[in-house]
């Protein structure tokens, strides 16, 4: 086994950065633990919400990278139907899935746990919209910047979007709880 192989070093480096970001997100959660306890069903919603943000932003970055490598998308913010279509689709996917995840959490809470707390659906919707407003521009800008600097965004954006997604999602979730 080649412990110091190129793959080993590259994956370990990306993982340690990603884990550190995840721990920072966990620290945010821990800091507002009293607020989390106020909304029943939030822990049912949380893993799906974190996973969804990473998947949608990762796919957005991957599609834009393919477009840039093929010369169809320019690596800058401009009036392009491919860029606009990608951003709109990612925004609506997050909104639709936030509503679905919120509804699942509400249904499980009310039918399995016997707690009727429909505010989880509103928290999910607010958190989805807020996290979109922060994460989508950051993902697009970082993908463009990496491409312009001569890097392949596919190699770097995976751990970046999951880490960014964890932190932004938890901040958005806490804002959603405070609003509701």
């Amino acid at each position, binding site marked *: 086994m080649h412990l110091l192989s190129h793959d080993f070093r590259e994956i370990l480096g990306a993982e340690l950065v990603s884990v550190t970001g995840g721990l920072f997100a966990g620290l945010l959660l821990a800091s507002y633990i009293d607020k989390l306890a106020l909304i029943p069903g939030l822990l049912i919603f949380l893993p799906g919400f974190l996973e969804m943000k990473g998947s949608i932003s990762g796919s957005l970055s991957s599609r834009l990278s393919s477009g840039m490598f093929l010369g169809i998308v320019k690596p800058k913010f401009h009036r392009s139907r491919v860029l606009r279509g990608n951003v709109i689709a990612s925004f609506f996917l997050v909104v639709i899935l936030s509503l679905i995840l919120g509804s699942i959490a509400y249904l499980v809470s009310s039918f399995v*746990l016997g707690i009727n707390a429909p505010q989880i659906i509103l928290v999910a919707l607010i958190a989805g919209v807020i996290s979109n407003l922060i994460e989508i521009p950051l993902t697009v800008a970082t993908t463009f910047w990496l491409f312009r600097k001569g890097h392949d965004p596919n190699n770097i954006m995976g751990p970046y979007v999951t880490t960014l997604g964890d932190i932004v999602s938890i901040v958005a979730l806490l804002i959603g709880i405070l609003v509701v």
Partner: protein
Amino acid sequence: MADKCKKLTGKYKRRIVKLKRKHHHPLVHHIHKKHNISYKTLLYMKEYGPKSHISHVIIRESLKILILASIISSVGGVGLNSIQNKLFTILPLIILLPALNSMIGSYGAIVSSKFTMMLYLGKIRGTSAGNSPKTYFFPFLKNENLHKLFFTILCIAIISAVYMSLLSAGIAYIKGFEISLGLILQILEISLISVIILVSLIFTISVSVGLWIYRKKEDPNNFLIPIATSIGDLGSMCIFSLLVFLLF
């Protein structure tokens, strides 16, 4: 690559854009051969060409798999909800949670993409000829490249698990939570057992499902990553919840 696209005549461009997804393969194959344009470029043109409604295409194609992944992850969330009281009182566990969740998901993506690449590069035999029934679905029992990938990922997972356990305990201590050696060992135990079980599970699923999809003449890239990451998420939340329930 963009210059090569310009070589396409208007007739071909119109035909490829109008074709339904399930019908476009023969023509794409023809254009690829005649004009030496990669399949990736042609697929991108087909999906996001001038006549397609880009956001509709993306939403339609992504929604089903994302809903499935969300439902699977919510099942993991139900497990977490059952240990809510323990989770909210032991601070290092809640700090550890998002890191563990994303770490297992990213191993699913790494193993799936690397295994698919090995299949395409011929480092793993995709056909079943000459394989015993045992090695038909579990080729890692024999293949040296897969052994190497498994032990590389396992070593990285163990290092990451130790790193995140110690760091989460350290952060909790700084935030004023009382930490004892016994608690640190329990947190280490939870993260190490979780990653060892889950890396083995993800590896087995990625390899066996990936091989099955490849033998059906489909591209494992399109299916394997969402499947592996969702199962990784579900598994990590369930095993984490079970271990917290048993150890605390």
